[in-house]
């Protein structure tokens, strides 16, 4: 059951493929065979060079979706290719809002199962084996498909490092979606972009996250200020997202983002397994917590047993004095 052609969903934002898609393309390259991409939007041609540079030979361009949510039309386009006999052995989706929708829709259209929350993919016995972090990342489960392909995997961000291959621009082939009728009726009427200064949470070199230990919503400015001074991104535990202190887009963990920065600073975060699964692969971890028994200290390279209301203002002052 060797897989000689792999497709990767190339999501595009701000005119460039998202990092997770590039990570998956890099992984697909090492799993052998041809790597092709599926893309959608009004200007897919402009990313053909960027995708080619990571090893994509062909981009299947679903084209402009005219306001539809991507799930239905993109899945329909892929399903049509598979039914015509031009499909791949495996399709890798980034675990994003749209990636998950498309994978789920495709799974039904093709009547194929999906493996989600994948954190690694390897080749074994001529097939693909996926790894999944379970129970808060304390155990790693391996799984594989036993039936007919194409095999559908939904892979978490930061599971692989994105590395260019130096390939030429990919060829763009039109792959418009067939009519999908009533199921395609959800339309985007307007988009709202929250203002963000500095790097994206999952691409930042430094992440400063705050938790319930901050005490109240107003104290989150300490996190934002420190993140700005370190040219990093502010993050959060779910406790303060659920409490409405910060938007969900800040959440790190099992049900939020996976981050892997050079330094992760956890401030007033206890270190629940569901939080740690999203950050414990950071290269370095610094934790500030007033409870010396907080689980976060078990993964910290540097742990400060102290009060965030004292340590953070001092740290901010000292950094300001340097700049």
């Amino acid at each position, binding site marked *: 059951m060797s897989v000689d052609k792999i497709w990767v969903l190339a999501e595009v*934002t701000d005119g460039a493929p998202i990092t997770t898609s590039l990570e998956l393309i890099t992984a697909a390259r090492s799993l052998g065979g041809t790597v092709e991409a599926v893309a959608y939007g009004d200007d897919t041609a402009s990313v053909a060079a960027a995708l080619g540079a990571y090893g994509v030979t062909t981009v299947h361009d679903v084209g402009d979706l005219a306001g539809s*949510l991507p*799930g*239905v039309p993109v899945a329909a386009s892929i399903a049509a290719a598979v039914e015509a006999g031009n499909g791949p052995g495996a399709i890798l989706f980034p675990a*994003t*809002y749209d990636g*998950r929708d498309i*994978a*789920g*829709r495709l*799974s039904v*259209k093709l009547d194929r*199962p*999906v493996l*989600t*929350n994948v954190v690694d993919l390897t080749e074994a016995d001529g097939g693909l*084996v996926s790894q999944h*972090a379970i*129970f808060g*990342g304390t*155990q790693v*489960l*391996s*799984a*594989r*498909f036993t*039936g007919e392909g194409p095999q559908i995997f*939904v892979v978490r961000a930061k599971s692989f490092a994105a590395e260019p291959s130096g390939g030429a621009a990919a060829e763009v082939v039109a792959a418009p979606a067939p009519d999908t*009728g009533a*199921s395609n*009726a*959800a*339309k985007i*009427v*307007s*988009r*709202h*972009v929250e203002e963000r200064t500095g790097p994206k949470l999952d691409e930042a070199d430094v992440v400063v996250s705050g938790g319930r230990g901050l005490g109240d919503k107003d104290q989150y400015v300490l996190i934002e200020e420190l993140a700005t001074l*370190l040219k990093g991104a502010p993050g959060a535990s779910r406790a303060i*997202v*659920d409490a*409405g202190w910060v938007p*969900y*887009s800040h959440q790190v963990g099992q*049900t939020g983002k996976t981050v892997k920065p*050079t*330094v992760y600073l956890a401030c007033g975060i206890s270190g629940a397994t569901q939080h740690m699964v999203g950050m414990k692969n950071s290269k*370095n*971890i*610094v934790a*500030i917590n007033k409870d010396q028994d907080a689980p976060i*200290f*078990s*993964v910290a390279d*540097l*742990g400060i*047993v102290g009060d965030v209301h004292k340590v953070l203002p*001092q*740290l901010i002052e*000292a950094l300001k004095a340097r700049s």
Partner: protein
Amino acid sequence: MQAMNVVVCVKQIPDPAAPPALDPGTKNLVRAGKLILDDSDAYGVEMALQLADAAGGGEVTLVSMAPNGETSGLRTALAMGAAKAILISDESLAGTDALGTAKVLAAAIKRAEPDLILAATESSDGYTGTTPVQVAELLGLPSVTFAKKVEVNGDSVKVERQTEAGYDEVECPLPALVTVTAGVVEPRYPSFKGIMAAKSKPVDTLTVADLGIAADQVGAVGARQEVTDVAEAEARSAGEIVTDEGEGYARIIEFLEQLKVL
């Protein structure tokens, strides 16, 4: 205003506070003990009750697939105010994957003829996160996932859908399926009266055969995937722990300098 019928998918799961375990033989999650309502679904139940209220009436029906005829979690949701429930429980469902689960849920939901179907973006125990969209595709319905705000206006639903950069405003005609994120609404606590009333609310228990689903579509056979290995993850070891006596910040700066972040 017209009455609106809402189906909420509610998963009954092992208590997340108890340490989870895999069956050493089947590698499935052990679901032997008492199951409770998944917290993630309490938001869907609350949302459904509020939307039915705002529409000026209608019924909230729960749909759940769970082993051993489990109804504890359903009773909690019925006590919150849902009118009735459909439970699919069948020994042949052990080891069912997300797609198989969706086939079962979709067949049961069809019976309720809902205007709107609500589910959570992902469950707390399996968190595959694809089941609801698979249900929508099986029913040929549109879906809007990751809703942080939901409003029904006559025969369409308006959703603020979480995105990477903020949110999209999405409009969709009914019937449709919507998945809600944690925290969209504040789930009510069941009142004493609600708890008493829940005891006599109807729970229709069905088998896979009742739904007309072939046995090979569900269970471990239908899943067409297998667990090949379970291993301990590489543990990360603790480093230096310093008690702050006014100099903690300086130690952090020193550490960041070593890493050349500063």
